[in-house]
């Protein structure tokens, strides 16, 4: 019997973005966190990660969203980037076939290296550049369909690999909220422990007890709750 104002259980979830440069990873985060979109945006400068809450009926998920900071362009992302990630958004651009190949590479890499229970969502972005869903009349001039990867092809691959799948537009906002909610819902309850970042890692052991620099401060402020 929970009282009215009792807060829902809340947990932090590390989410990493992966995918080729310019597919719209940073734009998806900007849309999700600030409900904003900027044409020709500079790469993210400043924060190592952003946070955004996702309220589910029974619990609150606080996403700790890590962006590549452009490292994917010239360097392999360091292993520390996806270590302990409980979820990943692997993004491709529906107008560029090569980006799906790259996305598949990342999925394979995550399946090999990341935490065993990681939730991966495959996201085809720039949906606004595609023509209307059933393009029976390709004659229409103004709305040029730039789609190069069909929904069915990507979806089939996602199903095969057991990934969540969405097509989104960071520009219009279509499906952006939906992807994050789907991930939040898919995170297994068992891997959620309040206030820990990542409960399992590469070799499959429990998150170890570690030295806490805030241990003493917490005690001081008396917030042992």
């Amino acid at each position, binding site marked *: 019997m929970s009282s009215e104002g009792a807060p829902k259980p809340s947990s932090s979830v590390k989410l990493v973005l992966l995918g080729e440069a310019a597919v719209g990873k940073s734009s998806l985060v900007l849309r999700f966190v600030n409900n904003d979109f900027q044409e020709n945006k500079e790469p993210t400068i400043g*924060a190592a990660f*952003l946070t955004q809450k996702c309220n589910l009926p029974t619990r609150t998920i606080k996403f700790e969203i890590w962006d590549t900071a*452009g*490292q994917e362009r010239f360097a392999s992302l360091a*292993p520390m980037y996806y270590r302990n990630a409980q979820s990943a958004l692997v993004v491709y651009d529906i107008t560029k076939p090569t980006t799906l190949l790259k996305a598949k590479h990342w999925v394979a890499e995550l399946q090999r290296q990341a935490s065993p229970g990681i939730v991966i969502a495959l996201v085809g972005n720039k949906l606004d550049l595609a023509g209307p869903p059933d393009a029976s009349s390709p004659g229409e001039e103004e709305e040029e369909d730039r789609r190069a990867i069909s929904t069915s092809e990507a979806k089939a691959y996602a199903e095969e690999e057991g990934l969540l799948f969405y097509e989104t537009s960071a520009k219009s906002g279509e499906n952006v909220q939906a992807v994050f909610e789907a991930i939040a819902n898919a995170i297994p309850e068992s891997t959620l422990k309040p206030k820990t970042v990542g409960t399992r890692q*590469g070799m499959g052991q429990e998150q170890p007890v570690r030295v806490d620099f805030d241990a*003493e401060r917490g*005690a001081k402020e008396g917030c042992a709750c």
Partner: protein
Amino acid sequence: MDDYTLPSTIWDIIVLGTGVKPSLLSVALSRAGKKVLQLDPREYYGATETAFSIDELEQWAKSPLPPFSHIGTERIGEITRPRGYTLALAPHLVYWGSSLLELLREVKMTSSFTWQAVGSWWVYLPEPAMEERPATGIGGLLLDAGVKAVKAAAAVKKKGGWNKGRKKRKDVDVDTEASAAASEASKPTTEATETQSPAGPEAPEVTLSDLTAEATSTAPSGSTLRKLGTFREVPCTFEDVAFSPDLQDRDRGYLGGFLRFLMKCADPTDVKHQEILQKNSETSFSEFLSSEYPLPTWTIASLHSLTLLQTPPAETKLKDAVQALITHLTSIGSIPDIRSSAALTIAYGGSAELTQVWSRGTAVSGGLNVLGRGITKIVGDTVTLSNGEVVTADWILVPEEDPETHETSETESTTEATTKATNSTVSYTKSIHLISSPLNPLFTRKLETDRIPPNAAVLTFPVGSLCTSAGLTNTAPVYIIAHSSATGECGKDESVLYTSTQILKDDGGYEFASAAVRRVLEEIGSDGNGTTPEVKFVCRYTQKFPVGDDEEEMVAQETEEEEEVKGRIVKIKGMKGGLAFDEGTVESCKRVYERIIGTKEGFLRMTEQMRRQYEEIEDQ
């Protein structure tokens, strides 16, 4: 690597390399608003401080480049996930009072890492070694100080940081505690000594009850020094000294006296002790100890192990030993979660993790990391990259000695004055052993009050304690840094033993390492039903490190007329080869930063934008 062209050909700073120092400089300069391009011809971050999976280690072993040589790997047991390991080339210990931690606390970066505690130091001491005593008589110089010291042990709990871990200090702010501990420890303890009756010139008459009374008052849990087979825990606090079952009362007095001596040496205003240090600057550690504190021989090895120095006690300069011991003793007792510990280790590959987090930090604050690309030519401010691209920079930071990044034929002509820097180096023989057992006894709590267990430990094999098949005995200590799986470096039922010694391969260095590992497995690894764990994988290598004063590094690369030329090259010396994180690192990077930015102020500090975002995140 994706072959995009660089977004710009004009940079403020080009940093070549992704080792600890280049990465720290890179992120600090980037946070200071400079446009930084960080390159590494290797395909991974970390250079000589990197961490590898087993597959990667095997690959790396195939084409050794300086400073590495004589690399060999061997798979012995079955390895199911060779890519899942993170084995460190630089599994550095980070002392709680180190300048690295001070810096990370200051810029709120400690939470970017997973920290594990380094537990006890263990020394391999077979019974015969325990009986040896030095022939030397009682020295006079410090007797007075020594006697007073142990008698004054009771005062330590009030004054010193070394022992205060046993008190509950809930209200201490963590961020300032280490420095507080350090300064407390270095305060002269006048009241303490004054309250003592003058001691006679005899061996110190400290009774066990004196010390135990002191120790129990501060450690209600009552700890004793543990023994694991032939491995004995090193006594390093007054409490340990009081309880050590291996010490006679007389030894307790000397040992307590020596700890006291160290505390006084930690105080730069204690003229008398600074003079003693000065006078003995060339005296060896063992010579000094046996003449001033005639302790059993094993105690010398035991104390020496705390220094983590690779030289044997007889070749270790007193001042180096004292400095290292002070670092240890001012750190112990200060870690809130685990008072029995003095140092931490960074999970997922030690210093390799620093290089990854800092390199990412460069990107996050607007810089660019490029792997798989080096520099082929530097003329003035114009730099030709290995893919032919040409860029310019006001400053170019290059590693002093690194063949993989040092293909710069033209640099020599612009930087003649550079090679005067002392080119002295030292080589250490290292190995990484993957063990088929978690070696749990090494990773259990020492004190009841420790809230977390340690996940690393140090084991030392003193001079003469190991033997090769050819009958050679070790002429220098062999160290083992043990890591549990909680460091994320190996699987749940495994552990990793990192060995290091100055004995070179040709003198049996690799064999001594194997013998040492075997001892550990036999004496600590056996699980009661007689099965000894095995080595599943081993990698052995030799690595050359710079030695000498930090002051001599970072020689200015421009002469008067070169001031006209925009391009300026700074050569960055590599990290030293110690087992603990090179204490000079932060300061030497700050000096380079100062040359470029004009001040050391604000080094690595968050930018305004970062601070705002950080606060937003904190608020949520």
